């Protein structure tokens, strides 16, 4: 998948505090601190450095700042979208620009290091009380700058290329992950774990998720595969293309997504094409005010003759199916249960 914001090289901003600058700042701070404390009365706990010690520390810090190569606190890596990003070694002020990334950050135990997320980041509930930087497509740059992040996390599935360009220009590294499959979601979690210094946590999370995916796979083996229509939009009818990860989750849950032969991510489908394909199951996203109820479908011309409508196998699936994060396996288990009602899959190791 060409999941890229753009193909330019990264121009590192000038607002990246380099180790040299940090050390120089430290020296400056100590010098000014001493000047101030020399004029002020001594603090009660004697934090006043003797002048000689301060000089020594200054020399030490200055030497360190010369010896330390600038690359020590940051490294340049290629992110999943192919951009070169200057990622700090131990990022501890993160801004997430997509709900699935926020979920991953929390799942890796880094909720406290998240200093900002989007208006749409609603899981876990604590994410809602983080400072918001706006929407995914149009976040406020100045909010992001004011949060002083050392790393922003985004995804071309939700964010605009322009946002990546602008952040880059402002010297805020944006690390992008992309997931178009179930396996890709696991890979992006693993990748974020490495970038954020939580490789072990990420591996164990991914192992758990993989175990649940394998379990679903084992249970559905040999089961008949229902033909599934995922309704992205109802009028005109838009479904998912074979390359989207909703289609991938449907396949993993033991279904055959209708639209395998269609092109594009969100292909349109006419009723004429739909009728011969005759889906066994129809899935609708759980959003209000967009599609008719199951009963209404039974009166709609064309639709009422579909097997799924006649047998009332129409289901509203939760939005986690559209979020390539840790809860995607929940959606997978839920969907497998819907597609194979006899298997009682939904119970089990849900966390």
């Amino acid at each position, binding site marked *: 998948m060409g999941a890229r914001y753009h193909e330019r090289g990264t121009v590192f901003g000038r607002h990246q505090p380099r180790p040299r600058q940090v050390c120089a700042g430290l020296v400056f701070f100590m010098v000014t601190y001493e000047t101030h404390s020399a004029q002020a009365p001594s603090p009660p706990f004697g934090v006043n450095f003797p002048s000689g010690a301060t000089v020594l520390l200054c020399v030490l810090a200055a030497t360190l700042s010369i010896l330390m190569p600038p690359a020590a606190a940051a490294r340049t890596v290629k992110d999943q979208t192919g951009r070169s990003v200057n990622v700090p070694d131990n990022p501890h002020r993160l801004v997430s620009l997509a709900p699935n990334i926020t979920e991953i950050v929390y799942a890796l135990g880094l909720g406290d290091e998240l200093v900002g997320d989007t208006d749409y980041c609603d899981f876990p509930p604590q994410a809602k009380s983080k400072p918001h930087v706006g929407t995914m497509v149009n976040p406020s740059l100045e909010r992001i700058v004011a949060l002083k992040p050392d790393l922003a996390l985004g995804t071309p599935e939700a964010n605009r290329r*322009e946002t990546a360009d602008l952040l880059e220009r402002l010297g805020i590294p944006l690390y992008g992950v992309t997931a178009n499959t179930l396996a890709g979601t696991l890979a992006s979690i693993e990748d974020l774990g490495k970038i954020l210094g939580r490789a072990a946590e990420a591996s164990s999370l991914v192992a758990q998720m993989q175990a649940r995916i394998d379990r679903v796979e084992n249970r559905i083996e040999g089961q008949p595969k229902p033909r599934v229509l995922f309704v992205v939009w109802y009028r005109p009818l838009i479904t998912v293309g074979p390359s989207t990860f909703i289609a991938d989750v449907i396949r993993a849950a033991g279904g055959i997504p209708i639209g395998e032969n269609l092109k594009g991510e969100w292909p349109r489908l006419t009723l004429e094409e739909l009728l011969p394909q005759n889906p066994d199951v129809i899935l609708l996203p759980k959003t209000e005010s967009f599609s008719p109820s199951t009963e209404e479908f039974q009166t709609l011309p064309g639709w009422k003759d579909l097997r799924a409508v006649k047998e009332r196998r129409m289901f509203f699936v939760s939005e986690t199916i559209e979020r390539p994060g840790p809860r995607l396996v929940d959606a997978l288990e839920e969907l497998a249960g819907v597609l194979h009602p006899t298997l009682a899959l939904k119970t089990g190791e849900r966390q």
Partner: protein
Amino acid sequence: MTFRATPRNVIVVAGVMSLLLALTVLVSLTLGAVHLPLSQVWAALASPGTNSEATVIVREIRLPRILLAILVGAALSVAGTGLQALLRNPLADPYVLGISSGAAVGAIFAFWIGGRIAAASPLAAFIGAMITMVWVYLLGRHGGRLASYTLILAGVITASFLSAVILFMLTLLSTRDVRGIAFWLMGDLSVTPVAELRILAPAIILAIAGLYVFAKDLNVLLLGAEEAAHLGVNVVRVELGVYILASLLTGIAVSASGAIGYLGLLVPHLGRMLVGNDHRMLLPTAALGGAILLVLSDTLARTAVAPAELQVGAVTAVAGAPVFIYLLRKTGG
């Protein structure tokens, strides 16, 4: 209200408007998704060396956007004023000749053929605008000179054809690109780098100055082409000059910020209400007034639903249509 367009009056009006613009810019600099007290804004402006967040926000996020709003606002308003006089039609705006649609086709075409380089879009948009300008000119020429009605019809039909081309191309783009293009089509001031401002500013200022040279001729042209010719105006030269300069201004503005609507239609009308019909007075008033209005609109776009942002084109359209209707009712057309 009408002022006689003596040099002194022009300078006084332009001076007052410039002060208003400066005030607007100051207010706009202090408003945004992040609250910054006036003292910090001032410090950020006064000392460029420091790297505090306030400095970055003021100097690298707000200021370039405000400067772009000034340039684009002035360009669109002057282009609109020039075209309304040239076409002798109060409904003319910078987009009536299809130039913005041509720019959009160029930008989308750049996306389409896979030019994912950020700088390619504005350039392709400008090339699209210029091709459209020449095309509409050739269509709108009648008997060796520009005929107002033929030109309008040529522009309208070209715009509508190009809109169809845009829709066609949008159906073939991926969802991600469609989203980006949709924002661009709405008008967006947030994406222009400072380096581009250095090219835009002299180009727009030169084109506005060029149009001002024709101010007196435009006054005469309002009487009609025949009458203007009798009064010694080189009609062919004036029409061609105004046509090219207004198209250039539109093309540059649209390439930089997408199609920001209503400004170029509305500001000439507001300007005429303020200072009357003399283009020596009207053109600077429109330039500065357009700059003020666009800075205000963009400030609203940045702050209304903060931290999310509105598209400035959506703001000007939502605010512009009612204002236009009000003007229409008040002045009786």
